[in-house]
């Protein structure tokens, strides 16, 4: 029973990471119908931004929750800007071209960030400073660290926050309108360029937060760290229903649990394939995702 509970906790912690990154994916896809392949790399940039800020503030020697929060916000701000830049420079020019073109552009940006990161930061993994002292809580035979708890809590909070923004604010309404139909939204007087930029900024900020939190828990960062995580987060978003915020959360948790579950069996070496196997299955059975709404395709 111990082991099962422990694995459950492990799965949820892992899932929360995917969920945080998936939130950003799902938002951008919802508004732009674009799979932002570079999203995972923005997550990586968030971790690096946090790294440089934290080192500049010499936090390794003086861990402090307050400063940690500031570092996270700093990283979020940096990545929000990066997100806006990417959208403006790479995605907007191809917005009205075919979907294939946009997708390839996104792949190009992703590669640029990865290889660029290797040149600028060096390929050797760096270790993130400990901004918050690590503690382990034990309940019976089950262990959980304060960082894992933090990740779970923060992702749930972010989800609610995002949901609030999208459904209870004016800008959120504008986002939803743009996602239904871009041209009509423009006709209705919505500054769609601004809305799209805002969406990217928000999504990127979330990815950055995820990056910093993960780096806290698992202090190794390198320019390629966003690759696999990004892909799996995308699968999570699709699983939960792309464009659906609670869906991204649910999808992330499910992927995390499934991966952990498989890791516990003799087939642990196939863990990477789990996410994709699940993806294929869900797209065959229920393409809209678990919480998504299937819409008829109009001609």
């Amino acid at each position, binding site marked *: 029973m111990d082991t099962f509970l422990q694995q459950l906790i492990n799965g949820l912690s892992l899932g929360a990471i995917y969920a945080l990154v998936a939130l950003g994916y799902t938002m951008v896809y919802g508004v732009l119908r674009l799979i932002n392949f570079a999203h995972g790399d923005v997550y990586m940039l968030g971790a690096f931004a946090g790294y440089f800020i934290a080192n500049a503030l010499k936090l390794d020697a003086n861990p402090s929750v307050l400063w940690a929060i500031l570092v996270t916000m700093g990283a979020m701000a940096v990545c929000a800007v990066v997100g806006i830049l990417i959208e403006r420079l790479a995605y907007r020019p191809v917005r009205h071209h075919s979907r294939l073109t946009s997708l390839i552009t996104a792949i190009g940006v992703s590669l640029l960030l990865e290889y660029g990161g290797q040149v600028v930061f060096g390929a050797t993994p760096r270790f993130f400073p400990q901004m918050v002292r690590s503690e382990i809580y034990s309940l019976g035979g089950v262990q959980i660290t304060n960082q894992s708890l933090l990740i779970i809590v923060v992702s749930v909070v972010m989800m609610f926050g995002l949901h609030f923004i999208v459904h209870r604010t004016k800008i959120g309404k504008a986002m939803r309108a743009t996602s239904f139909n871009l041209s009509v939204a423009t006709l209705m007087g919505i500054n769609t360029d601004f809305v799209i930029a805002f969406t990217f900024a928000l999504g990127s900020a979330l990815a950055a937060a995820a990056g910093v939190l993960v780096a806290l828990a698992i202090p190794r960062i390198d320019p390629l760290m966003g690759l696999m995580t990004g892909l799996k987060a995308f699968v999570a978003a699709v699983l939960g229903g792309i464009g659906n915020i609670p869906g991204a959360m649910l999808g992330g948790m499910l992927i995390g649990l499934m991966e952990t579950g498989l890791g516990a069996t003799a087939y642990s070496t196939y863990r990477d394939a789990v996410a994709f196997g699940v993806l294929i299955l869900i797209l065959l059975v229920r393409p809209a995702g678990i919480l998504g709404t299937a819409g008829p*395709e109009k001609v």
Partner: protein
Amino acid sequence: MSAARKLFVVIVTTAILLGLNWIFEYGVGDFQVNPYYARIINLIGINITLAVSLNLINGLAGQFSIGHAGFMAVGGYTATYVTVYFGRQLAALAGSTLAGAAGASLVMVLSLIAGALAAALAGLVVGIPSLRLKGDYLAIVTLGFGEIIRVVILNIPSVGGATGFTDAIPITNFFWIFAMAIMTIVIVRNIAVSTFGRALTAVRADEIAAEAMGVDTTRYKVLAFVISAGLAGVAGGLSGQLFANPLNPQNLNFVKSIEVIVMIVLGGIGSITGAVFGATTLTILPEALRTFDQQFPGLRMVLYALLLILLMIFRPQGLFGRRELGWSWLRLPGRRPAIDGGVR
């Protein structure tokens, strides 16, 4: 074209290829082909097969597949497996050994057939779900499939796992590479100008409309996947059995699939000439940039990524668009017929 004329063309081509193959292996008098360039030329040939086969799905049929490396892997590993574990017996059937020309040729043909069939089967497996999926979703499923293949192969010790299939026996040579490249071009070209090709074009333009017009989109899409995958499998079989070129699951991943996509995008999606051009350019480019690379390590890949982005922004149709190379290119400017409608 009459049957006799076809036969004539095939014989002449084969003869030329065999002659070139001889030159590649033994040189002519005091001259030889520089081994480094020879290797690059061989790699170009394999990449041509890959690019042109991908063009069938992505270009002609307009389906978005980014799992091509997976088909290459399935075909390549199957073909190499056949040669490594059954090669000797098969060669003996021809009364020869793996080192002899007859034996090696027979084994090469058999292994490529095995690889093509296995890859085609994989294409079927991927093609069927594709019926229900469009655009981005299809792309991700093909990506996922490619990754699953990679993980599965990584876990099979008898084909080398993470170390790669280093037991492979190097029976690939210039002749087979370019014979297969030419075959691929001929197959795809014939498809393109046939009813099958027209159906694919209809599917690419507007699938629902095509369905409404009575085109059996299901059949043609799946067929496109199967043929394309089979040809990729052939490329894989050739690649894995090339001297000093073992198959490795780590490198048959989605980055490889993307490299093939860049080849056809550079040349122009939908154009076979474009695919050939793209394959050639992108095989030579990394090698040509080596000196640059020594000055600025790592920058080469950054430039590659930038090239991709700029290409999409400024010339998404690639170099050739959907056109093919023909005599019309040599006409004087001002009298060029408008293709694809409109003036450029």
